[in-house]
């Protein structure tokens, strides 16, 4: 928990000697609370006070970074159990496991597939994050595959091996890529810890019990390893939900530092639907990373969409700039449709207008990011507001006609909107999926746009 200026003041010498550059200890404390000064500016501060400050400043769930460059994955730093309290901060990493027993062409094909798994939704680019290489063969084969994969991807890497020499060589091959090492256990920690320290890479700490995990992370912390991801191993779904919930709860509510790290789950199911639904469960229930084997497009599209939903900001809906968006080769006789500036509303309309191949204008009205029905109910999508927005956006200069298409859900406002704007109002379909046939029919009746 963050300390207030007064809390910090209590920890300082209170001599007001000014050596820190501030007139009083209190002034210095206030700056520390704002994180605008560094504690070592005071030469007299005790070790005890330093430790208290450091621990208070540390987030309850550590931030862990995997990979480097554009595809760097940040996980952890979470602050709540429920997303209505505050936005979940760092989206759960999604990764795929490649077994080193696979033949080279198959590995290359899988890599190509993984790289194609990027999508655009609601104006955001969605892509998968990690590729994990699992050792199942000898050291040489493992390293060959690590080399092949790392040379062909910008994704973050996970090295799944318990073999000290294989790990050492693989870390040498991936120097600078900051791969995640999977995994240290009570049994192998003494043999692997020096290697991990030397390369300064994040590690997975694994134990089937939370007690075991806690002992292990405390040991790693003592060794100076702080970028840790927790794993309680393969367990039935419900037990994993329990573990992940407990880890998050203990870190947040009991300040259990030894469990204050993001958690990981490896999924081992052969049915692609079941695999995908299990992964979805951990995205919802406090997972920091999920690793799976299936690379089907529908798996990635669904998991990435779910993740986007769950990690969106519940206080601030995604919005777009309220203005006129021309779609396609518009002319002054192209139809004009109105919607809100809620991203989901706008992009849904946009994709259907594009699908119709009918060039059109979309006017997005500032509804503070509310959807059509919500905005209408909250009086943010009224005839007065829509007609004001038509004027402000300059719609009348862009089209020669005076026809506006409104969403079917707000058909009730058409009369009033006609009066307020002086335009002819046409009620469009309720669901955006009806837009293409609606627009094509309009297009068949040129009198609509020319009237």
């Amino acid at each position, binding site marked *: 928990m963050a300390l207030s200026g007064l809390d910090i003041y209590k920890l300082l010498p209170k001599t007001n000697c000014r050596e820190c550059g501030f007139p009083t200890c209190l002034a210095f404390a206030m700056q520390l609370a704002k994180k605008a000064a560094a504690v070592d500016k005071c030469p007299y501060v005790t070790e005890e006070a330093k430790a208290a400050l450091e621990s208070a400043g540390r987030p309850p769930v550590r931030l862990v970074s995997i990979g480097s460059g554009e595809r760097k994955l940040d996980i952890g730093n979470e602050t709540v159990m429920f997303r*209505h309290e505050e936005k979940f901060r760092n989206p759960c990493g999604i990764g795929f496991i490649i077994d080193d027993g696979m033949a080279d062409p198959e590995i290359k094909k899988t890599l190509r597939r993984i790289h194609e798994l990027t999508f655009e939704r609601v104006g955001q680019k969605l892509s998968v994050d990690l590729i994990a290489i699992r050792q199942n063969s000898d050291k040489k084969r493992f390293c060959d595959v690590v080399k092949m994969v790392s040379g062909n991807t910008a994704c973050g890497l996970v090295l799944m091996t318990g073999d000290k020499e294989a790990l050492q060589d693989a870390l040498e091959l991936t120097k600078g890529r900051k791969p995640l090492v999977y995994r240290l256990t009570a049994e192998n920690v003494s043999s692997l810890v020096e290697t991990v320290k030397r390369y300064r890479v994040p590690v997975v700490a694994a134990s089937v019990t939370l007690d075991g995990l*806690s002992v292990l992370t405390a040991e790693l912390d003592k060794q100076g390893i702080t970028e840790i991801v927790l794993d309680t191993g393969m367990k039935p779904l419900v037990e994993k*939900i329990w573990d992940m919930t407990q880890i998050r709860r*203990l870190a947040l509510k009991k300040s259990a530092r030894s469990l204050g790290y993001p958690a990981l789950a490896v999924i081992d199911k052969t049915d692609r639907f079941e695999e995908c639904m299990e992964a979805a469960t951990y995205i919802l229930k406090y997972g920091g990373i999920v690793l799976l084997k299936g690379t089907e497009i529908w798996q990635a599209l669904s998991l990435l969409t779910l993740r986007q939903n769950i990690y969106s900001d519940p206080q601030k809906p995604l919005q777009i700039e309220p203005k006129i968006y021309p779609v396609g080769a518009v002319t002054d006789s192209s139809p004009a449709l109105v919607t809100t500036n809620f991203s989901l509303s706008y992009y849904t309309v946009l994709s259907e207008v594009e699908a119709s191949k009918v060039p059109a204008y979309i006017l997005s009205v500032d509804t503070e990011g509310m*959807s059509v029905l919500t905005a209408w109910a909250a009086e943010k999508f009224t005839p007065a507001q829509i007609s004001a927005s038509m004027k402000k956006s300059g719609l009348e200069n862009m089209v020669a006609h005076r026809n506006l298409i409104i969403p079917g859900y707000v058909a009730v406002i058409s009369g009033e909107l006609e009066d307020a704007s002086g335009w002819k109002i046409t009620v469009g379909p309720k669901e955006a999926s009806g837009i293409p046939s609606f627009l094509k029919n309009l297009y068949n009746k040129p009198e609509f746009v020319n009237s």
Partner: protein
Amino acid sequence: MAIGMLQEKWPGKVNETVIGADKSRGGTRSNVVKTGGEASLPFLFHEGVFPHKPVIAFEIWDTAPADWPDELNKSLSGVYNDPLAWADKCINEYKAELLCVKLQGAHPDFGNRSADAEAKFISRLLKKVSVPLVITGCGDDAKDNQVIPACCEAAKGERCLFGDAVQDNYKTLAAAVSADGHSIIAESPIDINIAKQLNILISDMGLPVERIVMNPTIGAMGYGLEYAYSIMERARLAALSGDKMMASPFICFVGQETWKAKEARVSAVEFPSWGPETERGIIWEAMTAAALLQAGADILVMRHPKAVEKVRGYIDELMRGNTP
């Protein structure tokens, strides 16, 4: 030092609602569906009882749906024109334990069937199938106010679940449901305050709160799912904290919302980068359902047989952990 688990014990629990009446309850159903009753957040079995597994209701219509996507038509279009055969197929082929009948044919724009005709249809359906029924109106308030009371009467004593009552149209429905021994779906527009208010209004009319099921209004994955997810989490936390008026079980119309989603509808030909549509549609419905289960859903109304199969497997897998 050993880390102690942090167990939450809640003072409240979700109300228990029974759908269907068997012989011992004065009806003719072969089984009844009990739902609700949870005293913990979803699937945290260590923290409180979770007496009933979430249940899936197959959605059927009284009239052939015109705009369902091909993926649904593939398995179901053969029975669209015969709702009794449709019901039969869901039960015998897909092992439905609950059906949700939408009386779409009563809608002025989709057949305008009379209240009398719909009541007769419900009587025939009750004779044909022995599973409990959820029955929903066509969505036109004025028409539903004629049709639902007639159907309530036709199904008297069978303890069906009727819907949807909304804030500005609940009285006629609640009175009919109450008189004929059924239960009611109270629908609120993703709004926790309206949800509570409506539950209060309906129970003020004399319908016991145990006979109310809440429809929080959901969006499919990618289409506002997260709003429903959080509203449901908040309502469930309130229920577990002891608020009886927030403690109704949830019913979620997963099929209806999912199959509107573009990701569930468009073909790979139109959208090559989204891959084959068959699995895409099924996972969209199944994963939307899974997410809502994790927010506390008790009854899922679904459409695609394969999606139902997958969600049923998911529920079974979760419930296997429910050992006291």
